[in-house]
């Protein structure tokens, strides 16, 4: 029943005794917010009733399925002077490490997803959802190829009257740098280290599509299903991807500086080079 607090600096993440993220607290900016995180997948449409299947071009989800975390049995906390880490096994093919650094005021989440299982004959598009209490009233903001953040309004286009046929796919946007939402007191931002899909399907929630594996061609020109495999010595498996996203909650109008400066640091990571030397001759 105990809660678990991680973070050696100003930022603390609070987990429930079941290993679920529950709170985000920044003692410097006085931000205290409820946060939840989960994984789910959208089943790829197989094109059986009409001919348009989900594929590389076409996102046409056929149901949303939760991937339940394996809970406290697969939850390990590591603490140290520079950073704290939470290791979680979400399922047999999804792992996650959440890091909170002493000198940083954002949380870093490293996800390992794959090989996406397809023995059930269903293609899957795997997403993570982060839920807060931010009252964004259908509005969220996504970057435009790393440039300006553009306002998006769920189920609405300012240039034409939108007929909503695909309530999820119709609100998805490409994310290259990040996305955020805000209400009258706070901003909730996520930055990514790679191009992904993203949206806000319900108020207070941001989601990222991290990986996908589909079994049908969408007949839009690729000519094969988006079913990437990796073969090592004739041992072929679906692709496993490893990536990071970074989340932060700021008081209103204080998030832009972090999104711009840290976004640049994600894009231009420090370059490491190694050399071996004997004894103390390194000087």
């Amino acid at each position, binding site marked *: 029943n105990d809660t678990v607090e991680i973070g050696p600096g100003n930022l603390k993440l609070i987990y429930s005794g079941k290993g679920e993220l529950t709170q985000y607290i920044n003692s410097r900016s006085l931000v205290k917010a409820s946060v939840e995180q989960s994984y789910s997948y959208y089943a790829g449409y197989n094109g059986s009733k009409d001919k348009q299947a989900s594929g590389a071009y076409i996102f046409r989800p056929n149901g949303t399925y939760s991937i339940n975390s394996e809970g406290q049995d697969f939850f390990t906390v590591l603490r*140290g002077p520079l950073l704290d880490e939470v*290791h979680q096994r979400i399922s047999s093919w999804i792992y996650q490490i959440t890091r909170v650094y002493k*000198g940083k005021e954002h949380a870093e989440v490293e996800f*390992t997803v794959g090989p996406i299982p397809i023995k059930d004959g269903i293609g899957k598009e795997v997403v993570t959802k982060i839920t807060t209490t931010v009252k964004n009233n259908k509005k969220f903001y996504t970057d435009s190829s790393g440039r300006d953040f553009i306002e998006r309004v769920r189920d609405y286009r300012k240039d034409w009257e939108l007929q909503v046929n695909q309530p999820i796919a119709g609100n998805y946007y490409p994310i290259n740098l990040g996305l955020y939402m805000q209400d009258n007191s706070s901003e909730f931002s996520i930055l990514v280290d790679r191009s992904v899909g993203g949206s806000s399907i319900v108020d207070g929630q941001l989601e990222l599509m991290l990986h996908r594996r589909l079994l049908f061609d969408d007949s839009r020109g690729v000519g094969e299903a988006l079913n990437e495999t990796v073969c090592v010595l004739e041992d072929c*498996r679906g692709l496993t991807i*490893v990536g990071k996203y970074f989340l932060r909650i700021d008081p209103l109008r204080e998030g832009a500086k972090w999104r711009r400066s840290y976004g640049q640091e994600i894009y231009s990571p420090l370059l*490491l*080079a*190694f*050399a071996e030397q004997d004894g103390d001759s390194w000087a």
Partner: protein
Amino acid sequence: RTNTDSLADALAIAQHHDAVSGTSKQHVANDYAKRLAIGYAEAEEVVGESLSCIAESASNGGCMSPTNKFQQCLLLNISYCPPSEVDLSNGKSLVVVIYNSLGWKREDVIRIPVINENVAVKDAGGKEIESQLLPLLKASVGIRDYYSKAYLSMASNVTPKYWLAFTASLPPLGFNTYIISSSSSTAKRAASTSSQLYDTKASQ
């Protein structure tokens, strides 16, 4: 002379809309990846020579022919870094040069896989700085083992057990040097014994 022509070619080809959006056939995606890897490996040599030159320039007051051979770790995403996975118990030191390509000062936590747990990190002035050891995630080791089958000739014999973390401080558009060597005291081990709250079944 080393150059970056293959990297330029690979980057030019990867501007195709299928490469950008991920709508190519798999064999084409494999070709993009291969060309980028060739370009990266080529650029690694150029960067290694440049770093040797600027590092010597800083210590000797002039850029002579580079004497230090610098290597990078292109497969750190699968926890594979042969240059850092060296046995430091025999008196050798691992020199890490870190370059900041942005125009502002940065402080960041660096993480590299190591096989020794008795290690210390010193800055360029020889002063020991705070470091931390973290265990490798089991999943990472599994992925590394899978891919290392393809790189058997490169694979080191010992799988690293830890990430060594330390804070690097970098000037704008500049570099800093850190030295990792064996130590009588163990780097702080992320208090993994005292705060592993649950006996994880994953470890089985």
